[in-house]
């Protein structure tokens, strides 16, 4: 899984200004400390006598002096000047002796650390400020500075003579720049490394995070190799640790810059003629590079150990040189990539740009200071500490950009979903309205048909009979009552309760029972609860009403029954409805023709099986239809 980060969070000017101000304040602070360290208020000693080993003849030399390749003590000799000899507390400031530094006055040891016999101890890169006891401080006193370095080459930067209290400020500044801050950058780098390795799998940009973590870890390794005073390992092991870190810095710097300039490359990058040098590397290739970097880091300690094992002094020189060249080549390569990266992408991310620019300026500044002003370079060390931090901030800013973009997208999606939802609801309502309208239309046309079949025909018949004056008053009332009955049945059929024929027949009972009672006929109501009858809608219910009414009317009119029974029951999927009377039956000559024909027609219309059984013991009309 790769988190695609689009650098679309625009740099805001307050952010950029804040970063620049912080950087400026940081650099200014460092420069002030550096100035204090470099402008030592004492007498600088640059010309000395040097003896390569104790007892060897002294020869003239100029400081700084560098000599290879022995762990034997190296002795620098000078004499105490008049001014210092007269000082209240005469002292000597040794800017950097790297390892041991001991001071002899007229051949007597007066200060310094480390054993005088055996292997040299490691006092890292601390400056020394050693008091010259006033009783031995006379003008012309011979000062011997004995330097013994574990890595195998003696190195003495300028020394200063003067008042102890006056030299102390510079001593403190030097100690901060060369030792304390170095340790601090190592600790910070260790935390950065831990964070990167832990966050890599979580953030998803594993290549980038592991490379950055490796870079920070390499720096921490360098600090571990250089900075501890008298660690529980000897100088060769300390050198090995330092070189592993040195080598790792180059390797991870390479990997990291390729990752960064590939992951965040503008998608539509033009192909450059330098190709692989400047173009974004595909993911698979970067993966191989990462594996190669890890592999190199795994085997490099073994190679370094082998080289140092053979000859710690010469080996150290060779490893240092090779790592130096490798580092230079990697930095040149990275610079090329960074330049082409910015040419392609343009300035977007203030954190990232500040990190790159800071490192570049720091490197260039250190080179200029060391080469041309002979001032100890401190910017790069600080930059190395801040470089991963700035890049982490940059990553965080990018991640926030992605988060904001995702939030915005989610917001848009929500709006879209809400809109679609409204549309769907509107459509559903439309559909429901249409369905309702269609249903109403169907109902309306059915009612029209029913009216036409029933009440229309009946009223028309009455009118025609009345016109031809064949209609008795009784027949008129009878006919009109029938019409009203039919109309009421239509209404009842529309109100069919609970979607069950049980309720529908219940309504019918209320219509028919008063009539039976009026005729002195008992109504036996044997209705079973048949449950839901979805297949029997209002239309079929009306026809069932009409069949039952017709049957009932026939019975009352023609058969003179004592009882009429209505039965409703369910047989599986079938519903049976029957009306039986104990009257005389049709066979007794009653002209039941039209009524029966109507019943048959209606039963056929609703798809019911009709059975009419009539004899002298009574008539039974039964129909069966699907529930």
């Amino acid at each position, binding site marked *: 899984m790769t988190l695609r980060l689009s650098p679309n969070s625009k740099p805001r000017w307050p952010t950029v200004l804040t970063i620049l101000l912080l950087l400026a304040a940081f650099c200014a602070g460092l420069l002030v400390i550096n100035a204090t360290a470099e402008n030592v208020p004492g007498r600088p000693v640059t010309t000395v006598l040097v003896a390569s080993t104790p007892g060897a003849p002294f020869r003239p030399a100029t400081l700084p002096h560098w000599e290879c390749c022995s762990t034997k003590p190296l002795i620098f000799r000078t004499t105490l000047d008049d001014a210092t000899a007269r000082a209240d507390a005469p002292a000597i400031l040794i800017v950097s002796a790297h390892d041991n530094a001991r001071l002899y006055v007229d051949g007597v040891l007066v200060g310094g650390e480390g054993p005088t016999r055996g292997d040299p101890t490691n006092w890292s890169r601390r400056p020394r400020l050693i008091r010259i006891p006033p009783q031995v401080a006379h003008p012309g006193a011979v000062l011997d500075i004995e330097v013994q370095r574990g890595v195998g080459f003696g190195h003495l930067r300028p020394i200063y003579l003067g008042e102890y209290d006056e030299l102390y400020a510079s001593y403190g500044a030097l100690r901060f720049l060369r030792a304390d801050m170095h340790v601090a950058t190592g600790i910070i780098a260790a935390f950065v490394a831990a964070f990167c390795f832990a966050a890599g799998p979580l953030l998803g940009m594993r290549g980038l995070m592991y490379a950055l973590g490796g870079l920070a870890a390499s720096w921490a390794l360098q600090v571990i190799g250089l900075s501890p005073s008298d660690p529980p390992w000897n100088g060769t092991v300390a050198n090995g640790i330092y070189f592993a870190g040195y080598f790792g810095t180059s390797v991870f710097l390479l990997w990291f810059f390729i990752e960064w300039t590939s992951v965040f490359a503008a998608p539509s990058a033009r192909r450059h003629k330098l190709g692989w040098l400047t173009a974004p590397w595909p993911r698979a290739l970067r993966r191989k590079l990462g594996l190669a970097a890890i592999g190199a880091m795994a085997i490099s300690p073994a190679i370094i150990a082998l080289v140092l094992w053979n000859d710690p002094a010469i080996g150290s020189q060779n490893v240092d040189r090779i790592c130096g060249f490798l580092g230079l080549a990697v930095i040149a390569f990275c610079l090329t990539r960074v330049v082409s990266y910015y040419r392609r992408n343009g300035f977007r991310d203030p954190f990232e740009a500040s990190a790159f620019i800071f490192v570049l300026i720091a490197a260039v500044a250190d080179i200029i200071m060391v080469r041309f002003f002979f001032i100890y370079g401190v910017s790069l060390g600080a930059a190395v500490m801040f470089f991963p931090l700035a890049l982490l901030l940059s990553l965080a800013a990018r991640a926030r950009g992605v988060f904001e973009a995702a939030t915005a997208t989610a917001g848009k999606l929500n709006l879209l979903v809400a809109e679609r939802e409204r549309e769907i609801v509107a459509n559903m309502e439309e559909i429901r309205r249409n369905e309702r309208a269609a249903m109403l239309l169907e109902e309306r046309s059915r009612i029209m048909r029913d009216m036409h079949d029933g009440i229309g025909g009946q009223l028309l018949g009455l009118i025609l009979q009345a016109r031809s004056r064949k209609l008795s008053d009784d027949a008129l009332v009878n006919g009109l009552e029938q019409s009203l009955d039919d109309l009421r049945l239509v209404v009842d059929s529309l109100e069919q*309760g609970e979607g069950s024929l049980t309720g529908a027949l219940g309504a019918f009972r209320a219509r028919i*029972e008063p009539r039976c009672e009026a005729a002195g006929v008992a109504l036996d109501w044997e209705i079973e609860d048949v449950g839901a009858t979805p297949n029997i809608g209002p239309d079929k219910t009306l026809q069932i009403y009409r069949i039952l009414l017709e049957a009932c009317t026939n019975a009352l009119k023609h058969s003179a029954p004592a009882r009429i029974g209505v039965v409703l029951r369910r047989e599986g999927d079938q519903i049976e409805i029957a009306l039986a009377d104990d009257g005389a039956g049709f066979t007794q000559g009653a002209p039941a023709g039209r009524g029966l024909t109507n019943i048959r027609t209606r039963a056929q219309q609703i798809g019911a099986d009709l059975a009419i059984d009539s004899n002298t013991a009574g008539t039974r009309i039964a129909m069966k239809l699907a529930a």
Partner: protein
Amino acid sequence: MNQSPPRARVAIVEDDAILREDLARLVTRADGLEIAGVADTLAAGRALIETALDVLLIDLALPDGNGVELIREARERLANIKIIVVSIFGDARSVVRAIEAGADGYLLKGAGEQQAEEAIRSVLGGGAPISPAVASHILTRMRERTSSPRGADLEVPLTEKETAVLTDLAKGFRYKEVARLHGISPHTVADHVKSIYRKLAVNSRSEAVFEAVQAGLINLKD
């Protein structure tokens, strides 16, 4: 002690002249009933309920408005009045609406004289006429309300017994049969039905908005 009890004062609100006169004749002839007044519009009906009345026979479809309004007003004004809806079809929707407004029963227009008189007397005597269709409709209404978002705070829900009685009435069983089925007296069945009617009215009043919507939706002319 041979003095007959005071006759019940009956008012009739019906716009159809023939039907109105038919009802008036019926009331005049019946023992123990007397005409307190007749009206053919809602406005005239309002004037009628200013007087002391025992029974109000009312049509729902009046030329200047729906009789339901007058039922509600009459129920508020006269606590003991018996209100009977006169309906041509006795269709459940109109009857239930009237019951919700406070009616006590219904009478089919064009019913025989004896039947009509019986219906009036039954209501006067504390009966509560109910047709299977009306019972079924009430059940549906109650169910709709219980399942509606407001249903949870239905002010007075039906008891289990009432629902059971109503269910049997909806199937077409008559009072006597329902009474036998539940092992209670027909009188108790009538009490249940009256209680159901009252609850329907109470719930309906507490759901005035719902009621209005329903009234707007239902447009079946009487």
